[in-house]
């Protein structure tokens, strides 16, 4: 017996596969047909003309818009810090290493 988290992935996958089979069995009982090639298969956009397929999706950099918008006070300076200039990254590395060394020094003295 251990107080650490535990799980058995094999059992989990077996149960999941059984349940997939049950779900497939259930869905096979439903109506399979629909009217292909009619207005029924057009996407619903509140009566507006649907845009071209390639313009329907949100671009990947906008997927987390709500999250970035809410946490912009955190993300804006973080993004600014990522300049892509190697000299800046080296400065960050040296600064973090120095800070770590100071913390370890204080910890060893106490």
């Amino acid at each position, binding site marked *: *017996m*251990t*107080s*650490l*988290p*535990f*799980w*058995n992935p094999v*059992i*989990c996958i077996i*149960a*999941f596969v*059984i*349940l*997939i089979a*049950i*779900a*497939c069995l*259930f*869905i096979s*009982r*439903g*109506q*399979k*047909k*629909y*009217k292909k*090639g009619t207005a*029924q*298969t*057009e*996407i*619903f*956009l*509140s009566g507006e003309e*649907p*845009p071209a*397929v390639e313009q*329907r*999706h*949100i671009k990947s950099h*906008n*997927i*987390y*818009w*709500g*999250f970035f*918008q*809410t*946490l912009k006070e955190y993300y804006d300076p973080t993004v600014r810090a990522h300049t892509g200039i190697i000299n800046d990254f080296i400065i960050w590395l040296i600064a973090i290493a120095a800070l770590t060394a100071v913390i370890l020094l204080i910890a060893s003295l106490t």
Partner: protein
Amino acid sequence: MVVTSGTALGAVIGTIGFAAFGILCGLLYKGFDRKISAHMQSRIGPPIIQPFLDVSKFMIKDSVQPERALAWLYNAAPIVSLASVITVLLYLPFGGLTFTPILSGHGDLILVVYLLILPALAMVAGGFASSSPFATIGAQRKMVTMMSYEFPLAVVAIAIAWKLNQLYPGESVFGLAFIYSHPLWGHVGPAGIIGMLLLLFSIVVVTPGQLATVPFDIDEASPEIAEGLTAEYSGRNFALFYLADAAKMVAVGTLTVALFFPYDLSPLIGISGPVGSFIDFVFFLLKLFLVTTLTVTLTRVAVARLKVSQVPTSYWGATTAIALVGLILLVVPN
């Protein structure tokens, strides 16, 4: 572990039984939810069995697939969503300690917290695959919600396990059967009680996010994006999402009951045996009903929908802060 054909068959039958009962129970609670919320708004509302009628209707309606949809992913998403929710139920002490979870001993609280992400991820995949702008916006919003509520939920889970580890070192403190059989309320001081109440409040706030109900239903938001994720789903595919939603209500409610109300009635009234087990089972269903009514029905009637950008603030700000204070009050000796 030796797996005989008898135990394997028992596990399969048990899995089917849990799946059926979890879904039936979820649909029934959905019926109560609609009826109670209608009465709270001075409406008569649909009959309690309306969700059952809805599912039977969905099954006979055309299951339309949009022309430009990614067919295999669009059709697989509802199946994965339902299967993953029922998988979660197999780890939970559904029905109290009357029925040992089928997968008890093979997974724990942390696994359940992560497995609860799967149905939402399946819905996101289905939304993106349907090639609808409404569904795509819904999928984006769903991901934002998921990233937001996971943090406070993880804090609640860790807090309970941490306290149990203090009380019962070396025991299987992450196991849900262990958590259910070791209530914390009687083992903590006044500060611990306040901590537990704060953690309970946090999970009450997390639940509408998990179930995409008001005020955190930004991914569906009918007046704005016409049900969002499921805008293009119909017929049998939509029926599966509907069943997954019902079962998820049971799963999330059971998790709350297991963490915060793990009490049985039979020891108090001194009845044991099959009658005692039956009483405990009915008592569990009653607790589940009260939890779902509080976290889903009352909440969605009482408040309005939040904006997209307010959801992360609510979860990562206030809810997480409350959960962390609850954690500190619970684990600091008092």
